[in-house]
């Protein structure tokens, strides 16, 4: 059981020594070849893509990349993708579909980048297209939230058959800071917003958004990155074997239903 509050987890996942996807890839996959570019505009280092081997299964990997130091973060834009990042993700997902490889997405972003060029190149359209195309992608998709699951920028890699959260990871429609500044006109009250928004792994299970929580040993992934990597790998292998047993049309119907049934309303 994770006893930390949402705010404590928020602080923890922002720590500079929190492991990133670059720490996990060598621990989870036997081979990994990075593939670059969206074939339309450029290559966005905030999203990493490639082909890899998981146990004996060829897979496509798509991941948002937090930097481990300032230099890396400059390159990866603090894991805030531009449209070309999402379009690279879609290109690689379609490639995976062609070769009947499952897609594994690692989510770890404060959100899609908000800037002039991102708007000019259609940030909204890029995310929207991913939501629609991932929903009907004819191969299995498994996503894992490693740290921050920031809004639409996270969801763009989050339309999947199974979603897992690392035990301290968060997933939210708005940053707690943004919520606090709208609600109380005071961004400094983000810790209060954090607890209101219901953004923890346990919340995601209860609300039907995630299916599994992956344990971070000794309270935080950084305490044992090897064991965390092993736990992620174990989840992925088990889940892929489960998904492989399903007819693809049934899998797609279930994927649609997973999202279709989320919503709380009453009628008259």
């Amino acid at each position: 059981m994770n006893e930390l509050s949402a705010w404590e987890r928020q602080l923890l996942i922002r720590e500079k020594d929190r492991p990133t996807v670059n720490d996990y890839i060598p621990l989870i996959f036997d081979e990994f070849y990075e593939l670059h570019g969206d074939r339309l505009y450029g290559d966005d280092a905030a999203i990493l893509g490639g082909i890899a081997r998981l146990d004996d299964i060829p897979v496509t990997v798509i991941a948002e990349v937090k930097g481990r130091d300032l230099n890396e973060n400059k390159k990866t834009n603090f894991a805030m993708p531009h449209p070309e990042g999402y379009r690279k993700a879609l290109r690689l997902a379609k490639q995976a579909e062609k070769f009947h490889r499952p897609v594994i997405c690692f989510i770890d972003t404060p959100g899609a980048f908000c800037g002039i060029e991102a708007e000019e190149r259609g940030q909204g359209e890029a995310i929207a297209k991913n939501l629609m195309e991932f929903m009907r992608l004819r191969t299995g998709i498994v996503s894992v939230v490693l740290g921050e699951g920031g809004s639409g920028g996270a969801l763009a890699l989050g339309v999947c058959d199974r979603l897992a959260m690392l035990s301290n990871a968060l997933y939210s429609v708005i940053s707690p800071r943004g919520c606090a500044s709208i609600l109380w006109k005071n961004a400094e009250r983000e810790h209060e917003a954090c607890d209101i928004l219901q953004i923890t792994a346990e919340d995601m299970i209860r609300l039907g958004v995630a299916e599994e929580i992956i344990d971070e040993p000794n309270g935080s992934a950084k305490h044992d990155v090897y064991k965390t990597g092993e736990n992620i790998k174990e989840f992925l292998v088990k889940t892929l074997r489960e998904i492989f047993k399903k007819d693809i049309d049934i899998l797609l119907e279930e994927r649609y239903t997973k999202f279709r049934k989320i919503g709380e309303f009453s009628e008259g």
Partner: protein
Amino acid sequence: MLEDLFKNVTKRFNGNENQETKPVNNNKIPDDLLFKCPRCRNVIFKEDYMAVNKVCPACNYHGRLTAQERISITVDKGSFRPFDPDMVSKNPINFPDYEQKQKALRESTGLKDAIVTGEALIRGIPVVIGVMDTRYMMASMGSVVGEKITRAIERAAENKMPVILFTASGGARMQEGIISLMQMAKTSGAVAKLGEAGQLYITVLTDPTTGGVTASFASLGDIVIAEPKALVGFAGRRVIEGTIKQRLPDDFQLAEFLIEKGFVDMIVERKKMRSVLSHIMKLHGYKKREDR
């Protein structure tokens, strides 16, 4: 008040489209009788603004319509049949003051949530239509908006009908937490289904369409139309200005900017909208009800 609005709307539709409006000179007129254009700052009498379907006579900014106004100027008279008119959202994450806020808005607007969906005829052609209304929590998308859009699209897919959505939104509805975010995936999935059913999907982006709505069903139209000078974007202006530490140009994220960047098919004026929509539907093989 609302009924008066409707009279104006109807009058306009009966051919008063080119009515002249007079500029305002008197500084002593109470503010609530005036409309100040958010694009060009031109000030006119609200009555005159209403009489020209809320289009700024100085700069052609197409202002925000209520869902009822939009429906009455878009569909054939008396043809609108609402879907799911009584659907209301719960408070899934017990967000503070959410219920009270909604109660007050339901009373002041007569709406149940930020979208009205239904079936109607446009120049005789049956269509599924949805209209968002910014008076209701900036037309943010929570469970009700997501569910009503999804149901409307699923019905159209099943009955082989085209879908036209008039979008306007501040984005996902914070008060429903992650449930709101998931409506983006849900509605985009429904659009995929409509595509598989081979049916036409038109989105009309109206002022303002932003955030999670831009990043889902609004951007996915087979044909994407925008109204003149509508603000359309993913990130809010102020957020971007905060990031880059400078003021953005006035035309940033307007419909005219989007068409230049390649994200909108056409900009259509309100007075031509019915005509354009009906012709596009006909080009896709949809027929008038009596011709079928």
